[in-house]
């Protein structure tokens, strides 16, 4: 794609050119400057696309459910983009991306674009470039964009700020009513799915969930979280999930809902971009000066504490930029 101008590259993505989009997502993952320049030409206002998030613990059936959702949306004639995030190894940096194989029945469907992303050390259940990759898929013109997080535990709630409808996938083995009452991920979903509902413990799990959800103060926008039992492998309950998605979308899109979502997303994205930019500028600034190593050595030997070290680096940086 390097032979194209930024505008031409963006144009190809808008024309749903899969290779141009794939190359752009790779450039995003590599944090190449050109990626940001192309993205500037791909800004799509919030609202046109239905943006869904699917989260839940490892092995709960997220990828299988996403595959079922793809089938359902395709039946309605909608095109679908999927970003499936799997974890990177904190030791080797490698990753085994195994979500796509659950969705491979859609491999030949030109109305479906699936991209696996490794988290590359980014916390919160997503990969660093996920938000940008979502923007690429929106620009390609997909009617629905689905983000599948890494297998999450209790606290990975980033996805909820970036999608319109967040779906939490649980199973009958999720634990007791105490687990269902906890803060964090249990609070951020708009739809709770109890997958593998053909396993023992289904009734008790649904009850625990419903009670826990009812004990919470009602959501600000008046949406009551439904609990939907499913068996993704046989597509049982999928119609109900789709109908709940449609209900929530309609609910969110009335009044100020969409505007509020857009604000919340911009706020989250802005803070991530600013943090990234500050980190980049500061590390660029001290690169090659040996300062980083010097401070790390000092911290290791106990000569300085990490808080003072950070303050010193920051004040050096601020003094230097003030002079410039």
């Amino acid at each position, binding site marked *: 794609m390097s032979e194209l101008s930024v505008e031409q590259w963006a144009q190809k993505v808008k024309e749903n050119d899969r*290779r141009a989009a794939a190359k752009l997502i*790779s450039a995003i993952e*590599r944090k190449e400057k050109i990626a940001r320049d192309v993205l500037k030409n791909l800004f799509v206002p919030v609202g046109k696309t239905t943006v869904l998030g699917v989260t839940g613990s490892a092995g709960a059936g997220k990828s299988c459910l996403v595959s079922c959702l793809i089938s359902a949306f395709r039946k309605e004639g909608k095109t679908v983009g999927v970003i499936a995030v799997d974890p990177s*190894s904190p030791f080797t*940096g*490698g990753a085994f991306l195994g979500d796509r*194989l659950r969705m*491979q029945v859609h491999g030949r469907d030109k109305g479906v674009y699936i991209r696996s992303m*490794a988290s590359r050390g980014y916390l919160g259940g997503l990969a660093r470039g996920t938000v940008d990759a979502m923007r690429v898929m929106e620009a390609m013109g997909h009617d629905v964009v689905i983000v599948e997080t890494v297998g999450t535990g209790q606290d990975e709630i980033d996805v909820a700020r970036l999608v319109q409808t967040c779906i939490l996938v649980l199973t009958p083995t999720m634990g007791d009513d105490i687990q269902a009452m906890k803060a964090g991920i249990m609070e951020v979903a708009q739809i709770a799915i109890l997958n593998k509902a053909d396993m023992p413990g289904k009734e008790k799990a649904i009850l625990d969930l419903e009670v826990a959800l009812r004990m919470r103060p009602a959501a600000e926008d008046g949406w009551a979280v439904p609990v939907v039992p499913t068996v993704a492998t046989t597509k049982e309950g999928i119609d109900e999930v789709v109908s709940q998605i449609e209900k929530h979308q309609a609910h969110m899109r009335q009044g100020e809902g969409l505007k509020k979502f857009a604000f919340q997303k911009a706020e989250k994205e802005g803070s991530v971009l600013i943090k990234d930019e500050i980190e980049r500028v500061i590390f660029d600034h001290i690169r090659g000066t040996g300062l980083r190593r010097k401070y790390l050595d000092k911290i290791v030997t106990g000569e300085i504490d990490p808080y003072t070290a950070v303050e010193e680096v920051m004040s050096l940086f601020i003094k230097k930029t003030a002079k410039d």
Partner: protein
Amino acid sequence: MRKAKEDKDRKIKVLVSKVGLDGHDRGAKVICSLLKEAGMEVVYLGMYQMPKDVVDAAIDEDVDVIGPSFLSGEHLVYTPLLVEEMKKAGLDDVLLIAGGVIPAEDIPTLKEMGVKEVFTAGSLTEPIIRYIRSNVRR
């Protein structure tokens, strides 16, 4: 310094897949695991994939390497189809390597067809990783 940083963000991405009517995937899974341990990002496509499925996935995932695994004796049937699909899609900068139970006398034929290297059962890990690292597009 700049170079080192770029290399850190430049991960090698590999697509591993079983091709054709071949349900023996233990070897493919072992390879996936080894490449992951070597710091690569590995997309595993699973079993019973046709050449077009593999190439379509390779485009969407923007991989650097395609690694079909054959334990069914169908390597001479599917490899030309795979190469043809790669050509049609313009994936000329993607490294094609094959693995599995492949008779030694078939290896020159596979290479003539366009496979860059063949790693049969019993291959050691290190040479595979070294081969990928030194032959992948940059």
